[in-house]
């Protein structure tokens, strides 16, 4: 096993309402790389992401078999082991959803929310971390004078960057992004792409995307999910990727 491996997935089977979505998936993800998962809608790309942070467990009638191991502090841990803390897992593995989902609170409180969950009481430390996360998400300049405003008043692109800032405030080692630019215009999407590239040196990124141009611009590795199985795709320009059912832009 390579030293650079961050996530190991073994024989992963996932079914929902008796319908098998992921079939015996075995793969690895290397540290501080950006992997793109592509494939047509409904094949289980988003579902795969939720098997890494165990978020699928909140969905009724879903079932999973197999193993997911993540390297924390140099040691691999089975994240489905009973003794492994679920809050710890989700604080180390951030997730950004397809539709921006700011919480019903101010911009500041949105970003401070994960720190509140950890029980952090030091207001100065929280303020410092919120500012740092907003700066990393390229949002600080736009919101620094209106931190107490309702987060839902931000534009779609700003809301998505806020969600990324919220995921970054705990400095996760892994960031899962489920089509983070699909609800944004091309300009806002470019900003998010740039942001992802700046995060890559310190974070393992797994991005689900429908856009081949985007994938060819940012990904270190491309996986196609087809009929419940992972297929490695060579890197190259969008025409070389040849994945059916996807957008070119």
């Amino acid at each position, binding site marked *: 096993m390579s030293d650079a491996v961050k996530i190991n997935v073994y024989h992963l089977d996932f079914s929902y309402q008796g319908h098998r979505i992921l079939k015996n998936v075995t793969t690895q993800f290397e540290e501080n790389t950006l992997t793109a998962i592509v494939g047509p809608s409904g094949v289980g790309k988003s579902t795969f992401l939720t098997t890494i*942070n165990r*978020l699928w467990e*909140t969905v009724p009638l879903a079932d999973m078999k197999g193993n997911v191991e993540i390297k924390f502090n140099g040691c691999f841990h089975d994240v489905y082991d009973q003794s492994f803390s679920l809050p710890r897992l989700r*604080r180390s593995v951030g997730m950004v*959803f397809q539709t921006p*989902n700011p919480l*019903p609170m101010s911009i500041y409180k949105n970003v401070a929310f994960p720190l509140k*969950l950890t029980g952090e009481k030091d207001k100065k430390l929280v303020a410092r971390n919120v500012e740092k996360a907003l700066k990393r998400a390229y949002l600080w300049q736009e919101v620094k004078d209106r931190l*107490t405003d309702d987060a839902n008043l931000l534009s779609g692109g700003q809301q998505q960057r806020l969600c990324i800032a919220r995921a970054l405030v705990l400095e996760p080692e892994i960031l899962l992004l489920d089509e983070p630019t699909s609800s944004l215009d091309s300009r806002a999407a470019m900003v998010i792409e740039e942001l992802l590239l700046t995060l890559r040196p310190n974070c393992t990124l797994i991005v689900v995307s429908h856009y081949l141009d985007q994938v060819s611009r940012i990904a270190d590795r491309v996986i196609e999910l087809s009929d419940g199985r992972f297929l490695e795709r060579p890197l190259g320009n969008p025409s070389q990727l040849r994945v059916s059912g996807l957008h070119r832009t």
Partner: protein
Amino acid sequence: MNRIFEKLLLCFAWASGIVLVGSIAYIVGYLIFRGFETLNLTLIFGDTKPVDALLLKRQVFEGLFPAIIGTFLLILLSVGWSVPVGLGSGIYLAEYAGKKVKRTLNLFFDILSGIPSIVVGLFGFSVALFLHKHYSENIYPCLLISSLSLAVLVLPYIVRTTQVSLENLSPEMRLTAPALGATKLQNIFYVLIPKSLSGIVSGVILAIGRCAEDTAVIMLTGVVATAGVPRSIFSNYEALPFYIYYISAQYSDPQELLRGYGAAIILLTLCVILLFCAFVIKKQLAYHVLYRI
């Protein structure tokens, strides 16, 4: 054909809105027209000095002051009993209950919301008699029994509005906090309840209105025509809705009936003040919990 139907529907919707607003304006206008003249300190405090009455130095016998205090305490106690239980039940039904339990409890609360208030009053009266016979001879129909009976009456409103508000939240909203490491309880208290606050407060407002107007329940469980300001929750008490009912049924001269209209205006004002308080509390709560740094 579709366009004609659409226009007819629009006309019907407008007409319904106008009838509704018109009815409310007519009722309020009529009350003010008939009762405004009687609105003075004598109506509230009678012959007693207002300061003495407010400091509870002297009892008020001719005025509405004891009924105002009685109504206020009744609403506060009833809402106080029903809100925690209703919120808890609503949260349980929306977030924890299994399918079978949910179906059974939903049916139970639907039946409870359809029970006539006089039956709830009778139940409260029976409870008072039972406690008097088996527990303590000092227990009679009183403010406590009335408020508990009213709490039973309004409980379904609070349960169902809480449950529906929580269940209507989008799946994405439900997953946001867990994806950040929140436990189920943290998700409920930090995200789901604040997000449903408007719906939950609507249920509380409905409950306040119902507690303020219901006469059938309190007639059987402790309200009397003359009792003064209640000394404790085990005392009899006066209440505005009962006073209005009593005056309108038994008035001896037109002037006395006008006092009933005055009492109705005061009851309406009391409700508006309590609803306003509910809105302010909701806004302040939302600001302190969700927006203040």
